[in-house]
């Protein structure tokens, strides 16, 4: 089960596997747990044994940092003069390209800066061949580990001894003595100055014991381990001094290389710290001290861990775990770029998910808001439409009643006209009779409607003529008529006057106009006057004139 804030550092060596659970508290490492698995001395594939062991530790998805063995790593300090215009990345890239050309393969690399001489920029570049990394990656994948970084072992030691380095002006050597190799890290408060590994470690002593005691190496290894655990004296067995000399010579050659790179007087190493499983060999540290020009101590500066428990064995594992807590710019990661991107993404994943969730929430809120808004508008529009539909219904009913009224008017109009025609004739006759002069100078001969006055305008045909040869008794009537005969709209009044100035006729016209059912009254045009045939027409008496009036009704 993953523990929050804890990173596991896994130091997989030839002889043992060490795991350290480290968490960061207020920027300082706190060791939560240390575990170690001793591997068989010979023969077996270590990864085949480590897998089940890790499973038994219930690591789960706890982030893990693995170390790349020092012998597979090249550490190269770079110094950029003040006038060098290149950025650190560009300088590193050029250096790596040069190495790639020499190695004929693409190196994995990383770097961190350290404080060089004033005005100079200094970088510690670490490189590793992909072939050294791939087995580790394959192992982590098979073991289901949550690998967060791959750190070169010298850099891990630098992180492990950070508190010792930070306090020291002079460079401090931290040597992690493994079974077959030793990793050397030289650092000071200026930073990670130097890293190297050499072949030579605990196995030198095992083989020396086996040779002298004529026992198998595995038995000699057990003997070496039991000696280091039970012997309390600081004096090593005299049979191991030769092996120690070899180891010290290797270390001194490393220091010589460092001295050649950092020639300043204040850059002479001032202390040697010994770490690693083989460093706790009885009398080893003392023997080394007699051969070195500076103090030699066992590295026991692991925070929160008792010195009696040989914490120096776990220095690399703790360093690896603590490196996982450092920000990316303070550690040298040799994780392939794709995996590093994956790690970056994994760190960013919560933010991505949070952003996506937020965006999703906003979208959902927008959708819900839009839905509610549309529904609200639809409700409003529905109300509006219902109101308009009611108005349409009312309008339709008004139209219907109006149509009925128009129909009634249309039906009533001819009936009304027909009913009033007789009364109008009667009123007109009464009116005219009252207007005629008492001296008899004017008189009326005819009052008729226009259709009866003008020939050819008749009504409907008779039901039946008794004798087809007999002429129609009413010459005004046409033979047939279609449709509805017209209503009486115009009256014709024919009369005679003895007034040569037609004054009485004019008075008559003026008077007629005052009748409420008369629209207009005037003399009928002479061209329209209908006269009897000349043969039957009686001659006008002298001083008498005919007048014909046309009265239009409303």
């Amino acid at each position, binding site marked *: 089960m993953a523990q929050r804030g804890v990173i596991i550092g896994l130091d997989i060596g030839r002889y043992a596997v060490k795991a350290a659970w480290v968490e960061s508290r207020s920027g300082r490492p706190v060791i939560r747990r240390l575990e170690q698995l001793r591997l068989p001395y010979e023969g077996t594939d270590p990864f085949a044994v480590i897998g089940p062991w890790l499973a038994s530790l219930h690591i789960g998805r706890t982030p893990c940092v693995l170390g790349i063995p020092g012998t597979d790593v090249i550490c190269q300090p770079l110094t950029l003069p003040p006038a060098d215009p290149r950025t650190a990345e560009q300088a590193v890239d050029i250096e790596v390209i040069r190495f790639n050309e020499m190695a004929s393969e693409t190196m994995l690399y990383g770097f961190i800066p350290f404080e060089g001489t004033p005005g100079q920029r200094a970088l510690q570049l670490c490189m590793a061949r992909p072939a050294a990394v791939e087995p580790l990656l394959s192992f982590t994948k098979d073991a289901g580990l949550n690998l967060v970084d791959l750190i070169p072992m010298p850099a891990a030691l630098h992180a492990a001894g950070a508190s010792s380095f930070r306090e020291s002006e002079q460079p401090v050597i931290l040597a992690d003595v493994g079974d077959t190799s030793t990793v050397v890290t030289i650092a000071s408060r200026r930073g990670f100055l130097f890293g190297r590994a050499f072949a030579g470690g605990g196995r030198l002593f095992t083989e020396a014991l086996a040779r002298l005691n004529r026992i198998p190496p595995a038995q000699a290894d057990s003997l070496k381990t039991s000696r280091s655990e039970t012997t309390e004296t600081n004096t090593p067995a005299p049979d191991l001094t030769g092996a120690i000399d070899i180891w010290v010579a290797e270390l001194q050659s490393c220091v010589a290389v460092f001295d050649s790179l950092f020639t300043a007087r204040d850059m002479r190493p001032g202390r040697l710290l010994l770490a690693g499983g083989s460093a706790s060999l009885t009398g080893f540290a003392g023997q080394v001290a007699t051969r070195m020009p500076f103090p030699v101590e066992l590295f026991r500066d692991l925070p929160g861990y008792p010195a009696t428990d040989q914490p120096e064995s776990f220095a690399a594992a703790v360093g690896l775990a603590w490196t996982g807590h450092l920000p990316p710019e303070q550690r040298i990661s040799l994780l392939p770029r794709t995996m590093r991107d994956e790690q970056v993404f994994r760190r960013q994943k919560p933010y991505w998910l949070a952003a996506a969730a937020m965006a999703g929430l906003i*979208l959902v809120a927008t959708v819900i808001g839009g839905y509610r808004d549309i529904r609200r508008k639809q409700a409003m529009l529905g109300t509006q439409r219902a109101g308009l539909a009611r108005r349409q219904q009312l309008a339709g009913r008004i139209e219907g009643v109006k149509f009925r009224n128009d129909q009634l008017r249309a*039906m009533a109009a001819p009936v009304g006209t027909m009913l009033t025609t007789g009364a109008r*004739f009667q009123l007109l006759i009464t009116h005219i009779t009252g207007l005629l002069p008492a001296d008899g100078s004017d008189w009326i001969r005819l009052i008729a409607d226009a259709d009866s006055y003008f020939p050819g305008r008749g009504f409907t045909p008779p039901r039946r003529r*008794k004798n087809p040869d007999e002429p129609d008794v009413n010459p005004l009537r046409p033979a047939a*008529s279609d449709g509805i005969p017209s209503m009486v709209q115009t009256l014709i009044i024919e009369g005679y006057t003895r007034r040569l100035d037609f004054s009485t006729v004019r008075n008559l016209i003026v008077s007629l106009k005052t009748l409420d059912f008369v629209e207009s009254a005037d003399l009928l045009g002479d061209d329209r006057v209908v006269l009897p045939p000349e043969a039957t027409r009686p001659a006008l008496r002298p001083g008498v004139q005919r007048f014909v009036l046309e009265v239009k009704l409303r």
Partner: protein
Amino acid sequence: MIASRFQLKSWSERQQVLAVIVLAGLIIFSLAFALLLPLNADRRRTERDIDQMRTQLAARNYLLDETALQQGLNAEHALNRLLYSEWTNAASRVAGVPQHETSVNASVGHIDFKVAVLEASQRLHRKSRALGIILPREFGMDASVNSTEDARQLMLQLRSLENFIELLFAIKAVSFTRAEPLAPVTHRTPPSDEAYLEEYPLDFEFRGDLANVMAFFHEILESSHPFCVRRLRIEVPDDAPDGQINVKGVVSTLVFMKDPAELQPERQTGPRFFSPIGH
């Protein structure tokens, strides 16, 4: 191969997160498209309907509030009641023939007409002799009936003629020259062409003095002899004795076929109102 590609465990975390985000986005957008777009389309359709309804109402000046429209409807109803009342009054006043005889369904045979003509002729001749008014021997209608003639219409023509001769008797006209039925006229409502009024015209001519003429006008407005003047020519003939006037013309008996309420409601001439579709 394809199946393994789509196994979620085989994807990197980056791919998984991306897939989750894309999937969530797709779901949300699908939801939005499936939910909002139809609703929005529905809303736009409703708006279009409303615009159309508004335009229709505005075109006929009906874009008023409901109260105003209700008042307008009430006013039209009041006018309708008034017009209907006027119509029924006029119809009852001028109907020249009893209602049971005017119905198109009235059962009248040719024999009924023939008997009625002969009876009327005898009755009117007897009355004319008693009053001393000269009545033509055949007073406008003979008893012969063609097979194509409608007995009901013939009967109504006869009734009209009888009424008119009675009217002449009533006004004591000096002489009676002619009274002859003309072809009936049917009035129809303009749009539906439905008959609502039949007019039975009579062509007539009589002679009398001015008092007779004024009495004629008076009598035609009486409910006992209601007639409408359709043509009239009042003339003082040159050869007539003093004071005699010749009156000829056409009067009609009105037969109301239907009550206005019975007429078919007509197709509206205004806008065609409709219920908006989609709901």
